[in-house]
Structures are given as C-alpha cells and as structure tokens.
C-alpha cells in the first residue's frame, strides 16, 4: 500500500536550510499533522513531496518507490492549498472534475463529483465560478478537488487558514472522517496546535527545518520533547521558572519565588540536577486563599476571560509572572487579591536549561 516515507530529506535555499535531515513515515490511512511556527519549513516540505521542487538530499518514497524526479502529475498526490488555488475560469464542477478528466475516468465522473460534493455540502454551487463562491465554499471545493481522485497521498497546506472561525470549528469536526474515507496517507500542515490535535493521529513538530518530535497528540502535550515544543502547545502557553532542583528524602525539590515545591520524578530515582526550567501549564495551577509551605504566594494582577476559561495573571514576590487558567464558572479571585498557588508534582515538567531538552519521565495525563 501507499505508505509515504521521507528519508533524510534536506533542502536549502541559499544559506537558509528549510529542511534538515527530515525522516518521517505516514502509514496508509493515517493523518499526520505537520505543526510548527511560520517559517519553520512546513510548506517547503509539502512542496517537495508534491514535486514543485526537489530535495537536495535524501529520498521521498510512496509505497516503497522513490518519487523524486517524477513530474508532479505522475506522483499520485492530491493537495489542498492554503489560498485554495482554484481555477478561476472554470466552474466549481470543472474544478473538482479536472483530475478525473485528466486521467480519462470516463462516464462515472458525474457520479463521483455528485457524491463528493454532497459529502462536502457544495452540490448547489457546482455551476458557480470560484469568484461567486463564499470563502467556505471555495475551501470545500478545493478539498473536493483534492479528495475526488482517491490519491495515495493527500497533502493539506493549512486549509483552514483563510476561513472564518465558525467554519474552522465545523471543519475541524468534519475533516477527520473525510480524510479517512480513502486509504490515503495524509500530511496536514497547520499553525494551530488545537487543529493539529483535533485532526491528526500523530503530530510532527517542525522547528527551523528540523523535526523535533513526532508523536501522538496527547503525548506531545504531556511529554513535550523540549521547552520549545512545550511552549508551542497550549494556550495560554506553559509557565516557566528557572530552577536548580535538589534531591532530598527520596524526592526532588526546587525553589520557585522563595517557596520550596516538590517536583515530579516519575519512576526514577531523584538526583541533584543542574540548571533547569520547570514548566507548569496554566491549567494545572490551583489557586486558593489558604497559605501553606507548598504554596507560592502571588498577587493577582489581572483577570481576563479567554475561550471558556478565566485567565489570571499572577505576580510572584520575585517579580516573575505566571498565568493560571481556571474554569470561568468558578470565581476564585479578583484583581489585586493575594492568593496562594499550588500544583501537583506530576504536573511539573523539567527541561535542561542549556539544551531545552526535557528531563525525566512525568506521568502521562490526558490532554486538556
């Protein structure tokens, strides 16, 4: 079957390395999200697979066979573009059918177009030109065009980037089943970690042309490979503090703003560590008015509603600022309150301060 495999792929434009020794396999029927900040090389990666340019090094295989050097039209790839890239002078129907016609699929074209367009709810606009379509309809037409030929490899370049929030929410629910209709290996590029987590079986995190972590969504959230990955996943993003953990009485402790807090050691023996970052997600902070040895005193600077949560900006006695995300139904504190911050040892992540790499093995938890 058509497994997509990248093996040590490299590409540079001038002195900029857009792809550095990328290796990744996407199984048939699997959806892998390529996630990273803008400029990390996501689009370059897709375009190398699609054949718009060739890698400098390494190989790209589909079903075990190299496709490097083959022209785009012979790679068996379907692609949905961020800007839709619909053919402006053709109706939506002709846009969708173009691939089938090129392959000379014959009489069943009409039936296939009808079926995919009813699936994507664009049956009523098939005779319209792209400029007469709404953004959402354009996006669905582009998806239909990519899906209709049941390609062995399906590439989606941030397809929800240019549609409004409501539609994006709907599509996030619809897309996984749509993409799994055939047995395509799907690469889905996105800049939105929620989208990646909602749609993909696995997420490949790309930073500056390198794959820093490839894993299931909940694993990436719970066990980010590095502080950079931890910061990319989560909104508001993870709280960090500079610490030098020490082992005492079979446990690991660190000093945050003058308070000694216990850190997670997983099932490892605690040992003294060098300079580290400790990271705690805003969702894992517990805020109360009850003082204690394990509680960090803080002052609430501001309370902001965000999504379905209330986000508290906290300032510790040493001036460090952390964020806490609480369910907005509970009103624990108001601005200018003095509060106490706790978190479970299992919620803490430790990263090496020099390399950013995660240390230790915290317990696995469910993603928020």
């Amino acid at each position, binding site marked *: 079957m*058509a497994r997509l495999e990248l*093996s040590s792929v490299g590409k540079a434009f001038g002195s900029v390395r857009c792809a550095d020794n990328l290796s990744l396999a996407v199984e048939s029927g699997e959806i892998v999200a390529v996630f990273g900040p803008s400029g990390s090389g996501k689009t370059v990666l897709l375009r190398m697979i699609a054949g718009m*340019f*060739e*890698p*400098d*090094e*390494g*190989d790209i295989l*589909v*079903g075990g*066979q*190299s*496709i*490097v*050097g*083959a*022209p785009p039209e*012979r*790679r*068996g790839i379907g692609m949905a573009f961020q800007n839709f890239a619909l053919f402006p002078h053709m109706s939506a129907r002709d846009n969708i059918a173009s691939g089938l016609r090129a*392959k000379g699929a014959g009489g069943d074209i009409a039936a296939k177009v009808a079926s995919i367009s009813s699936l994507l709810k664009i049956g009523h606009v098939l005779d319209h030109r792209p400029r007469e379509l709404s953004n959402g309809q354009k996006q669905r037409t582009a998806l239909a065009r990519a899906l209709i030929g049941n390609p*062995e490899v399906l590439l989606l370049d941030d397809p929800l980037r240019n549609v409004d929030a409501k539609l994006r929410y709907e599509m996030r629910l619809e897309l996984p089943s749509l993409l799994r209709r055939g047995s395509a290996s799907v690469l889905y590029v996105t800049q939105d970690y929620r989208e990646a987590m909602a749609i993909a079986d696995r997420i490949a995190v790309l930073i500056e042309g390198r794959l820093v972590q490839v894993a299931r969504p909940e694993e990436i959230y719970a066990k980010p490979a590095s502080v950079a990955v931890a910061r990319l996943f989560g909104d508001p993003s993870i709280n960090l503090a500079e610490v030098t953990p020490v082992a005492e009485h079979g446990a690991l402790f660190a000093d945050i703003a003058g308070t000694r807090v216990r850190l997670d050691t997983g099932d490892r023996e605690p040992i003294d560590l060098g300079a580290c970052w400790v990271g705690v997600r805003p969702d894992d902070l517990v805020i109360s008015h009850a003082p204690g040895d394990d509680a960090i005193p803080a002052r609430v600077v501001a309370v902001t509603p965000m999504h379905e949560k209330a986000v508290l900006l906290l300032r510790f006695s040493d001036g460090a600022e952390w964020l806490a995300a609480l369910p907005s139904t509970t009103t624990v504190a108001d601005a200018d309150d003095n509060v106490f911050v706790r978190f479970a040892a299992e919620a803490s992540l430790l990263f090496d301060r020099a390399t950013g790499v995660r240390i230790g093995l915290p317990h696995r938890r469910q993603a928020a």
Partner: protein
Amino acid sequence: MSMAQLLQTDTTARPKPRPRPRGRWLPYLLSLPALLVCIAILVPFVTAAVYSLQRYRLNLPYLRGFIGVDNYIDFLTDPAFWNTLKISLVYTAVTVIAELLLGLGIALLLRRPTRFHNAVSIMLLLPLMTAPAIAALMWKLMTNPGFGILSYLVSLLGVHDFKWASDPSTALFTVVLVDVWVYTPFIMILLLAGLRSLPRQPFEAAALDGVPASFVFFRITLPMLAPYIITASLFRLLDSIQQFDIIYAMTQGGPGDRLMVFQVQAYLEFFQYTNVGRSAALLMILWLITNILSNIFIKNWLRLRERAHGHA
C-alpha cells in the same frame, strides 16, 4: 496512473546522488526565439559601430578601410552636423514641452471619471493610433497653400501666403504641430491614469483645511504626479529626438536642410550619398545621446518616486 507504472518511466537513480532537477532547459528553450531577436538586433548594432569607424561608401567599395574615429572628427568642423544636432534638440525640446503642458492640461480637465470625460479620452486615442507618416500626409492636405483648410483659415485672420512646411521660417512649427497632434494623447493617457490612481486623502484634507487650489496643484498634485510625468516625458523625449516618419513624410528634411534631424540625415547619407560610414557614425552619436538622456531621466525618476511616496 499507478505508482508502479510511474516508476517504469522514472529512470532516475536512487537514493543518492540526487538527479539534476528535471526541466532545467525549459526556460531556455522557451526564450530561444526572444534570444534570436536579440541577436538580430545586436549583430547589426555591432556592425553599425564597426561601419562608423570605416571609410565605407557603397558607390566606391574599393576605398573601404578602417579610419578610426575620422568620421566623428569630421563632424566637429561640419556645419551640416551642427545643424542636425541643433534642429534635433530644438525639435525635441519644443515638442516634449508642448505635449507635456497640453497633455497635463487635458488630463486635469478629464480627471473626474464621468461618462463624457471617458468618451473624450477614447476619442483622443484616435490621433495616437494614426500612423505618424499618414498623419503628416493628412496635415499636408490641410496646409496646402492652394486649397488647404488651414491655409484658408489663417487667411481669414489676415495672414496671407502662410506657406507652412514649405517655408523655412514656418516648417518647424508645422511639423511640431503634427507631432503634437499625434503624441499629446499619449502623455494625456499616462497622466490621466496617474491622476486617477493618486490617493484621495491629501486632497480631501486640503479641501477641509481650505487650502487654495494653486497650492494644492503645485504642492500636492504635481509632486505626486512627478513619476508619471517623468516616465511620459522620457518616452516622448526618446521618440522625439529620433523622429523620422513625420518629418520625412512631410518635407524629407527640407526645405533645404531646415528640418534635417538625425535619422533623416542618416537616411539620406546612406541612400542618397551612399556614405555608410558617415551614416553609421551619425546614428551612433544619436544612440549615445538617447542613452545619456534615458540615464539622467531614470535617476531622476527613482529619486522623485521616493519623494512622491514620502508625500503620500
């Protein structure tokens, strides 16, 4: 097409070294015809440069030989050359200034995009789309001393015996008139496009502040329009100094040598006096002048564009 079929046609070795990207030759193949045209221009151009350094007369082929820059040096003491230079520069200056002022004026008149204004600007395309040589013939008919309507009209004003192109004192005026008739619409079109693309805010702000119209024109409109004015005049300038069609069709450079501009003089040197070397040297000098002019203008254009953007 399945992957298996695809790979039968794909003969590239794998996994390493990487094959050269396919289709590298494609852009070169596509631009081959344009390259041929370039060669068709460059070869005669270089030939002309070589001829200009030769004693080369078609009627005396055995005298042909390399004489260095003698053709050019001869010009220094040749009154005919200085006459040509003078006439060409005067013709250029007069036509470009007249067309620029007139074109700017018309563009300002047509500035608001009403239906009537658009119709007028389309009608003004017609002279521009008339072949300049034919336009010269049209004006020749209208300025015929015997029956020409324009001769009749000036006689009504009390000017009798106005000989237009056949009188040395009015010949320049007459050909300039034809040039203005043909090419003013070109400047008008460019400036109109420029005027209509200017941002509205500065004008609205000036109107709110009650700034006088003359100030708006000289301090806002003109500076912002400057890049368009420079482009339009550059085009006219380069065309005008090379004017051939109108002058040749009207008077063939006459009366006498009154309108003997560069290209007409070079044409006659070549075909009438069969002096290829001299003709080529004349054209090389013209080419040099056009190069200098365009360089000066392009520099100014870049500077003005920056300033205009600063204003906006």
